[in-house]
């Protein structure tokens, strides 16, 4: 499905997040369109997690607005949350519950209760039908991500938020997850994902925003960003093999200093 430029599912406008005197996010703004995979990239501590937490309703912010499918996340948090599916960076479910019980829990709290046959079908779809009664902690990293992703889309949300979804996965599992993310897009959902992998951003994202020191410093398609910045001296200086890549642009724009 092609993104419709007139139909945005997520609109972040003038977002500001502070922790005491520390300004984590300042005047951040971007839209995510229906049927679009949008990547949020940035070095550690750049403000990605704070931005994502504000969208998810996990933290209160004093500046700016966030609208999810027409619902203000601060004014109508439950309605906004009902319109989005979330996969957190460190996915944790009750370790005592098995996969079926976890799916029953989340289908119930999203208001789409599933019977045993429906759950069996969902597990078959993610090739985990033989692991139905395993505890979540007993699954491999790739299997856990598949369960998390199916939970994030269990209620057919308009917006799916994925926080570093492929971290720690082997190449096969990563490719499989990319295909699943693209399948989510094909169904018309909007996807916002954060990642440290430039390869991932280039492979799956329609547009990306680079965020640094709490501000968005660039937004465009991966190719357009490369084209726009290929002649920047900072980008050329960090280029390793002559050919300018998205990673060169990213490091050129955010600097070479290692962030903690």
């Amino acid at each position: 499905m092609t993104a419709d430029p007139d139909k945005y599912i997520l609109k972040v406008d003038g977002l500001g997040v502070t922790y005491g005197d520390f300004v984590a996010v300042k005047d951040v703004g971007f839209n995510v369109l229906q049927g679009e995979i949008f990547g949020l990239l940035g070095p550690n501590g750049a403000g990605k997690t704070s931005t994502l937490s504000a969208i998810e309703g996990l933290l209160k912010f004093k500046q700016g607005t966030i609208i999810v499918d027409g619902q203000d996340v601060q004014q109508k948090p439950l309605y906004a949350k009902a319109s989005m599916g979330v996969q957190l960076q460190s996915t944790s479910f009750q370790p005592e519950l098995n996969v079926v019980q976890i799916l029953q829990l989340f289908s119930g709290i999203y208001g789409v209760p599933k019977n045993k046959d429906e759950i069996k079908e969902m597990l078959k779809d993610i090739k985990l039908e033989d692991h139905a009664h395993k505890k979540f902690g007993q699954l491999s990293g790739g299997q856990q991500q598949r369960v998390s992703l199916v939970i994030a889309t269990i209620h057919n949300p308009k917006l799916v938020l994925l926080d570093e979804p492929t971290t720690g996965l082997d190449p096969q599992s990563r490719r499989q997850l990319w295909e699943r993310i693209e399948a989510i897009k094909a169904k018309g959902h909007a996807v916002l994902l954060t990642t440290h992998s430039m390869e991932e951003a280039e492979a799956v994202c329609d547009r990306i925003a680079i965020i640094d020191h709490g501000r968005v410093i660039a937004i465009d398609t991966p190719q357009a960003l490369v084209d726009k910045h290929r002649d920047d001296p900072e980008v050329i200086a960090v280029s390793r093999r002559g050919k300018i890549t998205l990673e060169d642009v990213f490091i050129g724009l955010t600097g070479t200093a290692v962030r903690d």
Partner: protein
Amino acid sequence: METTVIPKSSAVFKTLVRADMATLFSNRRSVVISLLVPLIILVSWKPLVKVMGGPFALSTAITIGLMAIGLMGYTLSVSRDRDKGIFQRLRVAPVPTWAIMSSRIFIQLVMIMVLTLLVFIVGYQYDKITLSTEGYLLTFGVAILGGAVYLSLGQLIVGLIKTAETINAVTRLTYFLFIMVGMFGEMGTLGPQVKEGVHWSPYGSVKLMLAASMEPAKWTHDTTITVWVCLGYIIVFAGIGIKKFKWNSK
């Protein structure tokens, strides 16, 4: 534009309770152990029943069980789930925060009812302790009030302390202190001032309230004051605990 529908709070609460029950069932060994402590005390105090009376033994056993439920059961499960990010996962869903906590508290209330019933059964079977019908009914109600004192104390601990390891240590220490100082202090072994302090402490107040509820005819003005003291504990502990509580341990 499609209208966004949020799930009914009652359905969400029911789903959370079912999951929390499944979690409790998976942890049945630790549940049994926490229920065993008051029952062992009740059985081992058989010779004291004749001297101190049935209500004394039953109220001590229930008080110790309530402490285990409030301090160990509730507090440890909340601190662990906060540490593991389980609350954050629930909070990004359209779930009112009150429903997440109410479900936890509901499970503990069920535990309180089971504990009280077990103490009554063992007390009757082993020590032949019987109460009037009003006594049984009133004790169930007062056990819930007493349980609320320890649940709110648990809430205070998870509100003031963030790390699960420190909470674990503090709750165990508090539990041990209440049992040792409470039991010996109320008998006067630790001196009159400690005895007076224990009388108005969460341990002494809950125990006195429970003992009086088992013999409604002996309910005095002093007992009514104790009920108010317990309500005061609940308001202060829960008030501070809820205000200071953070959903994320990071």
